[in-house]
């Protein structure tokens, strides 16, 4: 009996010790041990400057395709950036620069003459020609995902003059054309290669002019790229790139901790400290094009009175909101878009004034407030923002019921309607930032403002450098500030986790345009 009791006590103690040891992993900073992809320990210590021939990058999702015409999210753009080039590009300062073009000239409002650089070859050794550009634009206009972006091109009246010169006609003046052509959708690829491969296969490989080409795509795991020997520019310094798909942010950080990756895109705000504390890694962080705004449906009866909209913005303490929701990682903004975008103007700060807000609510006929739904997409960041705003609005009597669901689901459940919502935007051109206020772009604000519709269309017809553009922008901003349909409140920085052994990494506000050519990682 005593023996049984004794063994039971020992068993219990051992079980407790087992649990404690299992929990050890939950606390403290991990001691970094370097491992390679196969799990073997590498030797450490020697300051050997031998360059590796492969850089491993982590991204958050596998692209569904790398066909530029089907690009509708940045997962695709991250990959097309390595294997394709566009007519234009965005440099690390967010400035538009020439890509495949030697030159271009805006001849009149609807006519632009383009000249391609000569001698540019695709990864299969064939030449880039004007015909490819026309073919690619035609496919974009036929793609349900991209056609709205390229409707402005009047291909029927456009002309190919020779292999390197062509003239595009637009249906109307279209100022954003350079920016549109600098995105992943604007990537130029070989018509012959597409026709040889067919739709399905083309989306899983690449025949582009970019510094790399796809050599292997292990579905669900990674894409392997190798240097494009026909690349027209300075050859990339590292021969191979492996892009691994790891959905969980924590798992991406763990990959850095184990040394199994050199660069990680998409480091979350609450992982920044952790990555910085990893021996041999650091954070590269800077302004991005991603901003957050809360929106009030322009068709919602409760929000028809501008005093209500004003009150809802006055009740928000922006600094506190940004601090609470992002632990200070994000930056409060006072413009109607990310500050990095050319044309976004700094507006007078909307003060935090609860008393004034209450007064406006009373004047509008809602002294006791009202109840609304505040929709956010499933994301910890959005939910935190919603909770903070909810508590701030409670002070002026507005009871916000937070609804968390994918946007398409929410719209389907509510007949396409919504009341208030927190959304993020990610655009590098001002017209694409302001598009959310247009009636034809229904899902963001459910626009119904004819003046705004006309003004935004008018803005697109003023090319950069035209003084009318500045005037139109000022008018639009003043109007938006007065109307308060939205309340942009913060810009989320772009954050990369980078190994200290990587040289030549230059921060770019968007990973979809980052330049990998000078990256070198040493052993």
């Amino acid at each position, binding site marked *: 009996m005593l023996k049984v009791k004794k063994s039971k006590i020992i068993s219990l103690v051992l079980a407790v010790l087992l649990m404690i040891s299992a929990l*050890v992993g939950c606390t403290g900073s991990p001691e970094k041990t370097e*491992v390679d992809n196969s799990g073997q320990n590498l030797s450490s210590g020697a300051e050997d400057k031998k360059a590796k021939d492969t850089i491993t990058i982590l991204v958050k999702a596998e692209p*569904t395709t790398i066909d530029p015409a089907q690009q509708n999210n940045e997962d695709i753009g991250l990959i097309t950036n390595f294997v394709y080039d566009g007519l234009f590009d965005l440099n690390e300062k967010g400035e538009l620069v020439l890509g495949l073009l030697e030159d271009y000239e805006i001849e009149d409002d609807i006519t632009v003459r383009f000249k391609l650089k000569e001698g540019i070859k695709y990864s299969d050794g064939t030449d880039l020609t004007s015909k490819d550009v026309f073919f690619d634009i035609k496919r974009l206009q036929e793609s349900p995902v991209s056609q709205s972006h390229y409707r402005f091109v009047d291909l029927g009246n456009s002309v190919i003059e020779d292999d390197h010169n062509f003239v595009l006609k637009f249906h109307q003046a279209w100022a954003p054309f350079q920016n549109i052509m600098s995105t992943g959708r604007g990537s130029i690829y070989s018509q012959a290669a597409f026709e040889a491969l067919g739709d399905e296969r083309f*989306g899983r490989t690449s025949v582009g002019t970019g510094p790399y080409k796809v050599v292997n795509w292990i579905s*669900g795991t990674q894409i392997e790229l190798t240097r494009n020997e026909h690349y027209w520019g300075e050859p990339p310094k590292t021969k191979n790139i492996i892009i691994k798909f790891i959905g969980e942010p924590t798992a991406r950080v763990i990959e850095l901790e184990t040394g199994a990756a050199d660069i990680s895109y998409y480091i979350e705000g609450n992982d920044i400290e952790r990555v910085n504390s990893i021996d041999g890694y650091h954070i590269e962080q800077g302004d991005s094009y991603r901003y957050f705004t809360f929106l009030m449906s322009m068709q919602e009866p409760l929000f028809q009175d501008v005093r209500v909209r004003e009150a809802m913005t006055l009740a928000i303490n922006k600094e506190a909101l940004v601090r609470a929701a992002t632990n200070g990682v994000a930056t409060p903004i006072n413009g109607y878009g990310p500050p990095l975008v050319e044309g976004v103007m700094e507006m007078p700060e909307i003060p935090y004034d609860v008393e004034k807000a209450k007064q406006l609510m009373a004047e509008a006929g809602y002294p006791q407030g009202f109840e609304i739904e505040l929709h956010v997409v499933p994301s910890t960041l959005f939910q935190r923002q919603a909770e903070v705003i909810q508590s701030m609005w409670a002070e002026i009597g507005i009871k916000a019921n937070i609804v968390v669901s994918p*946007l398409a689901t929410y719209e389907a459940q509510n007949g396409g309607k919504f009341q208030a919502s927190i959304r993020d935007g990610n655009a590098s051109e001002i017209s694409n930032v302001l598009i959310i206020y247009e009636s034809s772009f229904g*899902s963001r604000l459910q626009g119904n403002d004819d003046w705004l519709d006309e003004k935004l269309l008018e803005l697109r017809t003023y090319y950069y450098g035209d003084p009318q553009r500045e005037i139109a922008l000022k008018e639009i901003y003043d109007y938006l500030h007065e109307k308060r349909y939205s309340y942009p409140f913060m810009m989320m920085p772009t954050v990369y986790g980078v190994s200290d052994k990587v040289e030549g990494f230059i921060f770019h506000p968007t990973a979809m345009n980052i330049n990998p050519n000078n990256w070198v990682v040493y052993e």
Partner: protein
Amino acid sequence: MKRYILGRILMMIPVLLGVILITFTMMYLSPGEPARFVLGDMATEEDIAIFNEENNLNDPFFIQFVKYVGKAITGDLGISYTTKQPVLDEVLARFPTTFKLTVLSIIFSVIIGVTVGIISAVKQYGFIDNIMRVIAMLGVSMPTFWEGLMLIILFSVVLGILPSSGITSWKHWILPAITLSTQPLAACMRMTRSSMLEEIRQDYVRTARSKGQKEFLVVMIHAFRNAILPIITVVGVNFARMMGGAAVVEIVFSVPGLGKLIVDAISVKNAPVVQGGILFVAFAMSFINLFTDIIYALVDPRVRSQYIRPRNKKTVAKEV
């Protein structure tokens, strides 16, 4: 026996039809237009209309269902909304990974679970028995995703001996297999222990011992052989369950399996992939259940005799 197997295969048809109907209905009724998920919120109404037309989403429910079943019978599971690839190709690309992971996990859980279960039964209330029962309870209770993350932290980050994600080498399979095998291992161990305890108390075991048989032979040849049937049931059920339940492990370890494919497809309402993936899993589970029953028959002559066609009376009479 052949007739039994054929009958079971035929019975799979209504099962699979039922699975298709339920999955199809749930995807149809779930809110949200696939077009909005796939095309993004920049899509215009015209874009959405084109998408719906191309994917026959404007047809009534029954027409869509009948068309889908008609194609599925021929092996055409449709085209993925997002990748534009045939769903069958995507499923077949991912299925081997999930199957391999499941097989590794079940092998691990059976070897360890049965061994420990036998030891626990033989040394009932001993030190090992008590420890193993606590571990089994922990194993059954521990959330899979938590266990996976803890193993990653311990073996990948702290010790640095195993990789944390992917499947590019044999070492990549170890942690996911251990994680997925924990609950079945615990269940297997408990069932083995319970089943063995019942058998080692039987008279025939006492007889074998009294005849001077070695203890090892008494336990493994006499007792275990009779205790194995419930264990086969548990292993079979767990194997089938793991086929469908590997999604969590696949997500934690970034293993590109069928479970992860289905979960990702659900989030964007990619109905063809969800339906095709679940249909494939149901198909696999049905075969696994059939396989379990066949093993039963092989192991237990009493079960086997139920499937043997009775000899005709003339032959029996002649023999008599």
